[in-house]
């Protein structure tokens, strides 16, 4: 299952070099994937000699991310992550590490979560940073942060980069972009890096998820790409159990838990699930910091 936005930009993660993307090739891949409608959407994008126009694609991606931000706003992703991040920040303070503590949002896009945290969860000893491999999205995130005088920073880098220093890693709606056979690389990167913990929030797969995603995106999104990719995101989300197993295998120095955002004692399935990880020496401290909410962490018993 492919998303259109994943195919519109081809950037080498190692060098940051951007390669031309051929429109016909993208359309062909989508058609091969059984997505004729998405192929038609791509076929309408402007191209020079068959190569997609970089500037157009960048501006379009900014517009698509603006649309997708509605989802983050309505589902309160900022608050969702802040609630899980709070206990981890409290844990960090007990580790003896000197502050300020750097919280890095991997694949931040236009930086909604980082900006939200900078506005609503600003702390003297915490620094919020967003990274994304797309320079245009990072520029937009910086512009938006400047416009509201928010104390956060954004850099061009990819989620697998080893160049960064982070105390905690976070992401929202990113894991489903990583194919199942590459998830291990992501957690291996966590393992080898300096971060004490991580929180990744993503869609939770269920039988109702594609229908719910279709309803939501049809009602809320205006751009065909945002509508298509939104539904695909829900369809290709990884099962929390797979995330937990992969993290345990590739990041063994972390203890991990799953948090499902669902209304207790109701039949409604949760829309999002989070995987939370903390280095083993600090796991008990983290559980204490979660307090009564630790009961909602699967695997914390």
């Amino acid at each position: 299952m492919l998303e259109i936005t994943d195919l519109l930009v081809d950037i080498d993660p190692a060098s940051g070099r951007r390669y031309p993307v051929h429109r016909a090739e993208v359309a062909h891949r989508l058609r091969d994937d059984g997505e004729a409608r998405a192929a038609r959407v791509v076929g309408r994008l402007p191209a020079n000699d068959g190569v997609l126009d970089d500037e157009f694609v960048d501006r379009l991606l900014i517009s698509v991310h603006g649309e997708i931000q509605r989802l983050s706003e309505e589902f309160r992703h900022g608050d969702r992550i802040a609630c899980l991040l709070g206990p981890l920040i409290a844990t960090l303070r007990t580790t003896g590490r000197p502050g300020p503590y750097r919280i890095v949002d991997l694949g931040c896009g236009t930086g909604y979560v980082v900006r939200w945290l900078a506005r609503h969860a600003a702390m003297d000893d915490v620094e919020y940073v967003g990274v994304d491999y797309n320079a245009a999205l990072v520029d937009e995130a910086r512009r938006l942060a400047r416009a509201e005088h928010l104390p956060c920073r954004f850099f061009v880098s990819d989620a697998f980069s080893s160049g960064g220093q982070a105390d905690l890693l976070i992401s929202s709606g990113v894991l489903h972009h990583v194919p199942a056979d590459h998830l291990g690389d992501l957690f291996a990167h966590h393992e080898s890096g300096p971060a004490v913990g991580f929180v990744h929030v993503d869609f939770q797969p269920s039988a109702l998820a594609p229908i719910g995603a279709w309803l939501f995106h049809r009602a809320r999104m205006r751009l065909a790409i945002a509508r298509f990719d939104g539904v695909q995101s829900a369809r290709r989300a990884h099962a929390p159990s797979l995330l937990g197993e992969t993290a345990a295998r590739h990041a063994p120095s972390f203890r991990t838990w799953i948090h499902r955002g669902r209304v207790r004692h109701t039949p409604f399935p949760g829309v999002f699930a989070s995987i939370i990880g903390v280095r083993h020496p600090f796991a008990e401290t983290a559980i204490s910091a979660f307090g009564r909410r630790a009961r909602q962490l699967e695997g914390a018993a």
Partner: protein
Amino acid sequence: MSPAVLAVVWLLVSLDCALMGYRLAMGRSALLDKRARHRRASMRAALLGQPALAGMTLLAVGLVATGPTGLGAAFDDAMIRLLAVAVPYAAVLLAATALCLVPSRAVRTVATVTIFGPLSLFRPVLVIGAVGYAVLPDPQWPLVLMGALIVIPGVLVEPWIDLRIARRLVLDAASAATAAALAASGAAPDLPRSRAQRRGEERLETVRVGGDAQMAAIVPTHVERRAEEVPRRREEVW
């Protein structure tokens, strides 16, 4: 015609206009604080709906005054049938809004997924159904005319504006691409400036599209800043 029934219809249509304004304003700014913007959009849409409502009320009053005896009672019955559908819909929306006051993210998420999303999506169907239910039991031509005057704008205005917004988003992206091409070629012709351009928010430029033919492009000024940043830089350490 009963003034009380008319007042309830007026109130509900005004509320619907305000909600439409809110929906149309959503997703158009990526800033965090948009409450004032959304409030303004809701107020503007509700106000813009007032002349239309007043016009339709005057038309209905005129039709009743000049129409056959009993047309006023038929209008009342039709409006009551309309309210039989519209009031529960509004009540569900208000209940869902009240649900959002519960300090639980999961509850709000369920409200969004199961109530706000589907109700927004099926609103056009509901408008057609409500008007059909109101008019079809007594299909006199003045009632059919008023029903059509409710259905056509009620169903088409929001998708039409949404489509224009989507096209504008794509056109902005295309303008940005044009601007980058202009920045690379160094072309910067003099053309009359709009108010937005005088404020420095946009600029109008032309691009040669073959021979002597030129195409105008409205370009947001921040595009120029981005064009200057080519080639892209890459920070290795964050």
